[in-house]
């Protein structure tokens, strides 16, 4: 999290909104309507002043940030929905909707501020990388260097992701972009990730990195030799399927260009990894089915 000396105008606005919400809650409690605000203006100011006063931190983050005002509150419009919020070094954080389990735990005081912050504001409490580390970590696991990386908002109204944030990277001649998840946006903004990690995570397969395929593993009982890759003579595309022995074959799935490239040219993916990527559900399903039942289904096909 960037250390902010001053509150942003938007944050001030958010705080004003929060203050209004709290005032509204107070109004509901005393049930005196609008007149409460008019007659108790000094009291309101006193309350606002008190809010700004120093509070003992409820927790100190690993980066030294002070968490205060951490609390949950019900939505005004939908009281069954609860939100969690806090301030970090005086900056109001966006309220985030809580799970029902956490609402119950919070009401019973069974969940700590630390746990709530880790769950709802993970990038605010995670260890930041230094600016130097952030700027230096631009080398991918295969040795290539990220020539350029930035986050931008899609401005093309004809695109489905118009108005959303995307990650752009240039690695050698390759220029690629992709919609970013909220988690990655936060990680980038709060500097708890690096360009290399973001690019590996978002573009690993498109850059044919071996690291991108490591997460795919064949289920137990299936061997690499059971995986077949064949070329469709009609359209020239490569298909993949698994010979499951007595329970039959899986359906054929067409490999994407990038996966085909990773298999045949870059050799950063093997058949087993690709089978796990494309056919894991089907393999698991076939393995879990009664063999006889599967056999019958196979005969019908």
């Amino acid at each position: 999290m960037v250390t902010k000396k001053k509150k942003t105008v938007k944050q001030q606005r958010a705080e004003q909104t929060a203050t209004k919400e709290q005032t509204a809650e107070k109004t509901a409690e005393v049930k005196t309507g609008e007149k409460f605000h008019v007659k108790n203006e000094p009291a309101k100011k006193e309350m606002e002043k008190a809010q700004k006063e120093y509070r003992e931190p409820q927790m100190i983050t690993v980066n030294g940030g002070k968490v205060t005002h951490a609390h949950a509150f019900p939505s005004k419009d939908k009281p069954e929905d609860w939100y969690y919020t806090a301030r970090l070094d005086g900056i109001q954080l966006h309220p985030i909707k809580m799970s029902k389990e956490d609402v119950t735990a919070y009401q019973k005081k069974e969940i700590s501020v630390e746990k709530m912050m880790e769950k709802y504001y993970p990038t605010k409490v995670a260890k930041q990388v230094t600016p130097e580390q952030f700027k230096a970590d631009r080398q991918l696991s295969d040795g290539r260097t990220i020539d350029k990386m930035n986050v931008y908002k899609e401005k093309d109204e004809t695109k489905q992701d118009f108005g959303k944030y995307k990650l752009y990277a240039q690695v050698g001649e390759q220029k690629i972009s992709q919609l970013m998840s909220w988690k990655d946006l936060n990680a980038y903004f709060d500097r708890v990730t690096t360009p290399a990690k973001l690019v590996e995570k978002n573009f690993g397969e498109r850059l044919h990195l071996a690291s991108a395929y490591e997460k795919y593993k064949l289920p137990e009982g299936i061997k690499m030799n059971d995986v077949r890759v064949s070329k469709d003579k009609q359209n020239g595309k490569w298909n993949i399927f698994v010979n499951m022995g007595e329970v039959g074959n899986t359906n054929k799935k067409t490999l994407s260009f990038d996966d085909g490239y990773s298999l045949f040219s870059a050799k950063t993916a093997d058949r087993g990894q690709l089978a796990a990527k494309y056919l894991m559900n089907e393999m698991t399903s076939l393995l879990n089915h009664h063999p006889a039942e599967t056999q019958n289904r196979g005969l019908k096909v």
Partner: protein
Amino acid sequence: MMAETYEKLVQLKQEGEIGWLDFVLRGENSDDFKQWCEDHGTKPCEDAAEFYVDMTDRKMFDHQILEDDDNEEWY
């Protein structure tokens, strides 16, 4: 130079007199924004300024939530 008020900057932005970069640089968070850019190795530009504003406004990102972002529903 004194920072301009939020209301004034909003008005200028809405009238198209200034872009996101001026919006931030002429506001009271100018230094913080410049520090953020420095820390991220990026130059202060329109895209960076818009991103900075969006990330510090709770209402701007309602539509960015993706399916895999569990427990991050906003209002």
